[in-house]
Every structure is written in C-alpha cells, then in structure tokens.
C-alpha cells in the first residue's frame, strides 16, 4: 500500500468506504463546534470563541462524508482543495497526512478553516444538503487538521527544490503575499517580503480580531515561512522607501504586489466627519494592531456606550463584536438590505446575535448630528425595503418614503467597504490600473502589463476573501516560476 496515495481508488479509501454503511453515515448528525458562552466571551476579548474539535469529534464528523465519486465540494473551493482527500485521512486517523494534503493547495489552512465562508463555498455543494441534511463540517475539519498537526509537531517539511539564488520581492504580507512567498520558497527562490506596517500578517493582524483568529495561529504560519528561509522586512513601503527600480538594482528578478485594499469607503452623508465616527479599519487597527484598550499601550481608542456599525460584511461583524467586548452597552448593526443579503459568514451573524448585538436590517443612515464640541450624538436612519434585483443579483434597497427616525449614538463605525490602496500602483510608472485603482492582471497568470510584476488579492480584486487572495498568490507563483525558468 502506498501511503501517499490519497486518490479515491487507493486501497485504504475503498476499505474505509466499506467500513461504515452509507445509511449509518447519513444518520449521524453534524458535529457542534464547542464554543465559549456568550456571557464569558464578551468579557474576554482575546479568547477565541470557537474552541475547535477534539480528535474524536473530528474523526466522527469525517465519517459523515460519503466520499462521493464526483465530489462537488471541491468545485465550491476557490483553490480546489482535495477535500475528500483530507477528510478521509482524518477519518482513518492520519492527521499528519490530512494536514499535508491541505498544505499542498492552501498555504494557510488554519486561517482558512477559521475565516472562509464555507457555507457559500465548499459546504454549499455538499451532497448531504441535497439529502435534506446538514453538510459535512468541512471548515471545522480543515481547522482541526491544521491545528492538530501544528500542536503535535506532525507538520512535514514541504518538499523544496534546491536554492537557485534568484531573488524575488513580495510587496505586502497579507494572505496573498504570504501564500505567494510560501510557494516561491518551495521552488528554491530567495524571497523577501516587504511590509509597510510594523508587523507581518496584513489584514490577518490589523483586521481580524483575536476572538475569531488568534495571533498565535498567524504567527505560527509566519514562523514556518521564516524557517524555510523567507526574509521579512517591516516598516518598508515599496514605492516610497524603496522604489520599483531600487528593487531591480538590488537584483530582484520578480515582484509580486499584494498590497491589499487600503482606503476605507465612507458614505458621503452630512455629519460623517464628526468626532466619534470612524472607519472599521481605524477602529480595528487601533485595537488589534496597536493594542489600544489594553493596559500600557499608548494608542487611544474611543469607548462608545451606544455604538452603531454600518455594514453587513465580516468586518462589520468584527466591529460590532469588538465594540461589545470593549464594554459598549448597546451595539447596533445597521444594514440597508435584509439579513438574507448579508455578505458576512453565517457563523459570525449567529455569534453576533448571541452576544446581544441589535440588528437594524433594512435601515440606512442618512445623516449624523453632533453636539457643540463636534461629537456625534445622533444617527438619523431611513427605513428601507427591498426592490428589484440590482447588478449584483441582490434585491436593491429603496427608501420607505418618510420613515426616518433618530437613534442616539456616541460612536459610529463605518464598514461599507474599502478601495484598493493607491500607494503602490501610483508609484510604478507605466503600470496599468483600472478605473477603480486595481492593478490589471491576466487572470490566469496574475501577470500585469509589466513583465516581471505580478499582483493578487484585494489590490487586484478590490475586496475579496482570504482564500481568493491566497489562490491568487499561488497562481502567480506558479506562473512566475514558469516564466523565470525559461530565462
């Protein structure tokens, strides 16, 4: 028996399929993720809500997978992870191999297992849904395999080609950049990651709070890349501190830009520049990256009592839940469509509700009022109803004439999206950018109109997910390696 054969026809998988009858598999209920109680977690800001599955729970959940001949879950994954391949390894108790299968496609499975919107991706294609049952908990299992392998030193050294001496620069250390770096170092390149902030990790550090993605998980991935030889430079802005030409002079032969979506969007309504109104980027960066609100740290943060967060995405959920944990008495989520249209992960919506967040769906702020000192005191909201579907296919919200009311607030966090950071694109002469300031690339190779410059993640997509950014980084690495190999 070849232990590394993870194909469906491998002897061990056939044996596994026979071991439990399908009827027995389908009768088992989906595992429940052990989580901290709402009362406890709102008082313990840094503790991760989801506690993770035990080995036993994971192995049992893995038996719920029917090992379909034509697994649709894989088609739902933006990077086409061999899902049955890792799930069945969990079922047979070979967690090291499960983790290895994940790592061949995903640079950061412990991260994706936590932050991917599985209910819209892999799990939405699970055959169990068609059988009027709940899908296999693929996200929980992914997280389990990655965590278990890391905690038990079961991670295998990735196969690497010998050092080829060629230097590659990565701009930005978020999911796209780290995924790209991980792939290129495997090909034998000397990779240097340049980060503008003082810490490596990008949005995984400054954006996503620890109650959803602990820093230790991100650190472990960064340490692993460092151990493989990836050099990390903080406080360095490509285009400012070092120019694109400087990188050439330093001998870099390829450059990958994953500088992310920097600029927060505001709604451009009256009163939006009053004190107490800020972007979710500002609020979360102060707390997550700068330590605001923690004893001994210099960075201040406003402690709102009546807080409104505008938006319905994951960042909005992170903001409401952070505000609750920072001690706000009343936290409101204001979203102009209905709950069904919310882009946030289902689990975040569930957790937010459990934590006592008030949902003002079908509401939209139209104006803010303040006191003489310029501090926001009132949010004027317009009630909305759903009209015809718009370009995104979602029913677009339209105001209910005359249905406007005032809600007292002392802090408002605007979380209605971001635009690509113009810093890097603007500083590279001749680089083709779109009207929305995204870098234009070939969607298969991620190559820009400048031959040695590739890009991926939000700087290309405008605003997407961690897994898509990682997929971009990986595709860019494959294409760049191919191009450089021919030189």
């Amino acid at each position: 028996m070849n232990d590394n054969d993870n194909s469906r026809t491998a002897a061990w998988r056939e044996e596994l399929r026979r071991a439990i009858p399908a009827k027995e598999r389908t009768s088992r209920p989906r595992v429940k993720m052990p989580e901290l109680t709402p009362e406890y977690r709102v008082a313990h800001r840094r503790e991760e809500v989801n506690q993770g599955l035990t080995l036993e729970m994971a192995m049992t959940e893995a038996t719920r997978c029917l090992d379909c001949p034509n697994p649709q879950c894989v088609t739902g994954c933006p990077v086409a992870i061999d899902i049955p391949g890792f799930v069945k390894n969990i079922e047979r108790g070979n967690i090291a191999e499960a983790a290895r299968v994940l790592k061949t496609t995903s640079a950061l499975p412990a991260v994706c297992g936590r932050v991917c919107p599985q209910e819209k991706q892999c799990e939405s294609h699970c055959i169990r849904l068609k059988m009027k049952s709940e899908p296999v908990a693929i996200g929980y299992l992914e997280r389990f395999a990655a965590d278990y392998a890391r905690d038990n030193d079961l991670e295998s050294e990735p196969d690497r080609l010998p050092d080829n001496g060629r230097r590659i620069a990565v701009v930005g250390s978020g999911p796209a950049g780290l995924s790209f770096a991980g792939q290129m170092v495997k090909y034998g390149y000397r990779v240097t990651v340049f980060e503008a902030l003082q810490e490596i990790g990008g949005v995984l550090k400054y954006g996503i709070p620890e109650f959803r993605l602990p820093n230790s998980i991100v650190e472990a991935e960064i340490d692993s890349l460092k151990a493989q030889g990836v050099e990390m430079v903080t406080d360095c802005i490509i285009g400012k501190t070092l120019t694109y030409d400087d990188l050439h002079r330093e001998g870099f032969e390829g450059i990958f830009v994953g500088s992310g979506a920097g600029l927060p969007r505001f709604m451009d309504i009256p009163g939006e520049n009053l004190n107490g109104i800020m972007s979710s980027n500002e609020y979360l960066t102060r707390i997550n990256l700068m330590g605001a609100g923690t004893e001994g740290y210099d960075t201040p943060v406003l402690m709102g009592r009546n807080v409104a967060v505008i938006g319905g995405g994951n960042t909005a959920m992170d903001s409401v839940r952070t505000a609750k944990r920072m001690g706000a008495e009343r936290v409101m989520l204001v979203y102009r469509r209905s709950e069904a249209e919310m882009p946030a992960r289902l689990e975040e919506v569930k957790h937010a509700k459990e934590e006592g967040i008030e949902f003002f769906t079908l509401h939209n702020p139209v104006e803010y009022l303040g006191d003489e000192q310029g501090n926001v005191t009132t949010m004027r909201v317009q009630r909305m109803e759903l009209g015809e579907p718009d370009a995104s296919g979602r029913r677009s919200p339209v105001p209910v004439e005359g249905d406007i009311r005032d809600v007292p607030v002392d802090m408002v966090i605007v979380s209605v999206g971001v635009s690509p950071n113009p810093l890097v694109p603007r500083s590279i002469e001749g680089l083709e950018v779109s009207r929305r300031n995204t870098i234009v690339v070939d969607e298969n190779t991620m190559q820009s109109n400048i031959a040695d410059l590739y890009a991926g993640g939000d700087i290309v997509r405008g605003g997407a997910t961690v897994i898509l950014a990682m997929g971009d980084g990986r595709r860019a690495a494959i294409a760049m390696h191919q191009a450089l190999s021919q030189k």
Partner: protein
Amino acid sequence: MNRIVSKEYFSEKVAKIVVEAPLIARSRRPGHFVIVRCGDKGERIPLTIADADTERGTITLVVQAVGPSTTKITALEPGEYLTDVVGPLGQATHIEHYGTVVCCGGGVGVAPLLPIIKAMKAAGNRVISVLAGRTKELIILEDEVRKHSDEVVIMTDDGSYGTKGLVTNGVEAVINREKVDFCVTIGPAIMMKFVALLTKKYEVPTICSLNTIMVDGTGMCGACRVTVDGKTRFVCVEGPEFDAHKVDFDQMLMRLRAYK
C-alpha cells in the same frame, strides 16, 4: 537604522533629533513625512521631515513634547533607537518658479517649512520667510532659514524678539509692501486658518501642510480625513499639503480634539 545620532534642544520642550534612516534620507522630498513609533507599546505618530543628509544617511525631525508619544521621543538620547520609522509618506511639495514666495511658519512648523524654503529658493524664487512664536525661545531654525531666504521677518506674541504681533501681521505687512505671488504656511491649525483667511482676502494662492491625527499613515484608516473644497480627503495619501483657501479649518480643529 532608527538610531538617534544627535539631539539638540531648541527650548525646554522642543528638540531636534537626527535619526539614522538611509533609505528615507535618499528618497524623501520637501513636504514628506514619516510615521514614528517609540517602544513596543507606542503609538504611530506622523512627523514631517525637516532635513536629510543622504551621505550620512540621516533625517532630521523636530519634535515638541506635547503628549505621551512626543515626550517619549524627545526623551531618547543619542545612541538609543526609535522602534519604527516609516516613510517617506505623503505627496511632496510642488515646487516651481512663482516669483515672490512668502513662507510663514509658527512654532515647530518652521521645521518642515525649512526644506520648502530651500527648494523654493533653489527654484529661483524671491523667498521671504516669516517666523513666528509666542516668545523668543520658540523661534527655531532662524540661522538655517536666513541662509536660504532673501528676507526674514520675526514675529513674537510678546515682542521679546523681532516685531511684536502675530504671524498674520508680518505676512500682511509684506503683502502691503510688495507683490506676493505665492504663500506657504505651516504651523498650528489655528494659525494656518488665519493665514489662509488673510491671503484669501489678498488673493495670494496659498498652500498649507496639515498635521492631523493618523494611525497607519498609509491610507488605511481614514482618521486623518479633512474637508477640502467640500470633499472629504485623506491627508496621509492625498496631502499633507492642500490649497489653504479650501480647507475647512474649523472642522479640522474639531477633529484634532477627538481624543482629548
């Protein structure tokens, strides 16, 4: 990198520090700023670059101890290190031959004004510098400014040095005396507001350099937003310099009090 090479006090609370930052020294232009952090628990604060020495690989910062971070920074001794120095950030000053340019600075605002004075002079302008402070001790960098100006006017609130009066009195006297083609003003927001009101009256095009609250300084947080010509702009990536006649200084003054 980030090592303090030298420190000199201009007054009790105002220090000039020279910091090793070779990459920034090489790429910075007049008008640029850096983000500085002092200590692992420190906050990120923006400081405009006053000068740079590309050969020694240093930049010069002038810091007034007003809050916890600036107090920590000015307390650093030569040989010690700033935890982080990032930049250069912002858009560089647009320099061209205007004719006669009045450069007016108040307090530590004179420090970031100095490289602009130098560049305006080098571009062939007649440069008249107006330096203002509450009292004689708060007039800084006078000798360096003199070296690159055709004329220097000193204004103090208490009359302890130069002429007694506000910066606006000094600027108005120049405008009444001769044709002024352009004005640059850097200093406290309230000072820039009144300079802008004055030069608007005389229709002298004026730019100001805004020092707003920032967190990352790279366009990510939006804490620095100001209203210019009725539109919200980000000082860190679109500024720090704007048309002074179009800046909503009252809103900016209000926003500077957000964490007080």
